């Protein structure tokens, strides 16, 4: 593995980084999109932390700001129309938003990497996967073509692509969905990032392949001591892999809890409703408990708690600004609901 050792040495260092600080800390992040229809507030003050060897799941339905959070961390929001209007994104104590464009570019892939939802469209169709990996090593690590190719085959082996030596010369469209997602993971891991953001990594796959990919991710994370942010809308995917869960709704985090507690005893009406809407075998033949209504348009978020039009526990205080803050429920659990006690059923 001499090639990969040489690669690790060449990895650029971020000045001012404190190795003891949390791997990634997002604080009061705000992102808005200025469109013709108005200003869409995609993220309204999101805070969380991820450490090495830890998986944080961000869960929420479409359009709640999960992916925008990921893109803001990577620094790949198209601007205009997207603007980060406030907050901090601290990587090892360094606020990335204050760094130059070039420094941020260096951080991508080297420190923080991202996996996209649809691997077929996230791989460049006109180049072989081997070429795409090799280019990465050549540009970021200054490797020769031959060394880069060797390393590419190592990586494809690592993500368990059978016959990697042969398949390295294939184009993305020649891989099956699951294999393609493995290629994406290989590319994301190529430069040994400390943090991996997986944006719905299994949504485009069928269920059996989903499990394989999630296991692979979990295993690679353990081996490499990475931190991982798993973005998903699928409560089933999260259960096995995540350590902690943040539930997002309309650009805010409404509940934070360790994975077990979320399933056992949700503290926010939205989480509770989400759990109730999962189809269950023992309730066969009954009407599914869906959440009535639609998530709010981000251009016109309701006053107070954004969930109030769909909430079972709603009272007048919920319709007043400011929206409820995150109340500490237990040391590890917090909920942005005035009535978390009723939701939990505690007294």
């Amino acid at each position, binding site marked *: 593995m001499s090639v990969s050792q040489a690669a690790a040495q060449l990895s650029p260092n971020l000045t001012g980084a404190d190795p003891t600080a949390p791997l990634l800390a997002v604080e009061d992040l705000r992102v808005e999109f200025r469109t013709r229809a108005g200003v869409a507030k995609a993220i309204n003050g999101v805070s969380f932390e991820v450490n090495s060897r830890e998986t944080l799941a961000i869960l929420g339905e479409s359009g709640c700001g999960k992916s925008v959070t990921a893109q803001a961390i990577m620094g790949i929001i198209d601007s205009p129309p997207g603007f980060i209007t406030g907050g901090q994104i601290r990587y090892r104590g360094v606020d990335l938003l204050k760094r130059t464009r070039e420094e941020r*570019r260096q951080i991508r892939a080297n420190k923080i990497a991202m996996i*996209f939802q649809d691997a077929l469209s996230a791989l460049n169709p006109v180049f072989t996967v081997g070429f795409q990996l090799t280019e990465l090593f050549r*540009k970021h690590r200054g490797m020769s073509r031959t060394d880069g190719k060797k390393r590419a085959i190592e990586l494809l082996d690592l993500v368990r692509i059978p016959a990697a030596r*042969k398949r390295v010369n294939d184009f993305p469209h*020649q891989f*099956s969905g699951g294999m393609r997602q493995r290629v994406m993971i290989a590319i994301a891991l190529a430069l040994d990032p400390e943090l991996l953001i997986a944006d719905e990594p299994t949504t485009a796959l069928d269920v059996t392949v989903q499990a394989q990919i999630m296991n692979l991710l979990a295993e690679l994370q353990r081996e490499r001591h990475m931190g991982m942010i798993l973005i998903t809308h699928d409560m089933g995917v999260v259960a096995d892999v995540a350590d902690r869960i943040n539930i997002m709704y309309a650009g805010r985090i409404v509940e934070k809890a360790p994975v077990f507690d979320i399933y056992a005893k949700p503290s926010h009406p939205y989480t509770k409703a989400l759990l109730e809407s999962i189809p269950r075998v023992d309730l066969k033949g009954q009407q599914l408990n869906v959440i009535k209504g639609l998530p709010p348009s981000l251009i016109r978020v309701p006053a107070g708690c954004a969930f109030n039009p769909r909430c079972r526990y709603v009272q007048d205080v919920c319709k007043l600004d400011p929206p409820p803050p995150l109340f500490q429920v237990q040391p590890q659990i917090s909920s942005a609901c005035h009535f978390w006690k009723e939701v939990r059923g505690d007294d």
Partner: protein
Amino acid sequence: MSDTILGQTETIGPALSPEPPRERSASLWADARRDLIRNPTFVIASIYLLFVGSMAAFPKLWTRVHYRDCALTADNGLPNAKLPMFSPGHWLGTSEAGCDFWSLSVYGARPSMLIAVMSTFGIVIIGLPLGVLAGYFGGWLDAIISRLVDMVFALPFLLVGLVVLSIIKVTDPNLRIWTVTMFLVLLGWTTVARIMRGSVIAVKNLDFVMAAKSLGATHGRLMFRHILPNAIAPVFVIASVALGGFVATEATLTFLGVGLQAPATSWGIMISTHQPLIQDYPHLVLIPCTLLIGTVLSFVLIGDALRDALDPKLR
């Protein structure tokens, strides 16, 4: 797409069976090449262009008579001008001035092809980078480039050609070719810029561009490594159609008297000098017309075939 169906079976762990032999890595371009070779229109058009192209490049391959060896009366005293086709010694007859018509036609290919090829290179060299920049960066740069395109696009081609080329009085045949080329490039680059801009905008919003960005790719790299190869196909189509268009435009400008001028030869010159004789000697006009139309048609057909072969949506 039999590949994807084959690839659908997920192999877990060590491969149980050896992989089935499959067609070697077919990229978009490799697929296109295979399609084109099987397309009879493309093959016929290519052969025709090879014929005309070799006339332009090596006229001596096709005729031993120089196009300026003209004589109004032959050695035996008989008239030599305006001979009909299949006369002894002149199988396409002779021109008004007693020149061998076949030789004129062969030598006439060079200026036409030269102007067409150089102009096409010119419009791609100017239009492609401008289109990529406008499409990729958007904003004020796009606004400036797009308005410039609109302005040039609004100029009436023939009218401006008549005015500008009649003002520029360059008579040296070689320099005249350059003058006409420059004019064609200056008015023609807008199509390429427009197409390229649109195509870049379509490609830059695809996921793999964002993925490349998230892997730390620079602007230049995104533009030229990731976007350009995926966005350039329409330019090949435009270019091949433009080649044909420029052959026709050169002939038009020459016919109107502002393009190339005698004593040079070109198909346009041949048409314009013999145009008064069309009733009595139709072949003197029809022969250069046929060559011209064949060339234009071949370029257009090749453009068509290229578009079919390169457009993945038609698969």
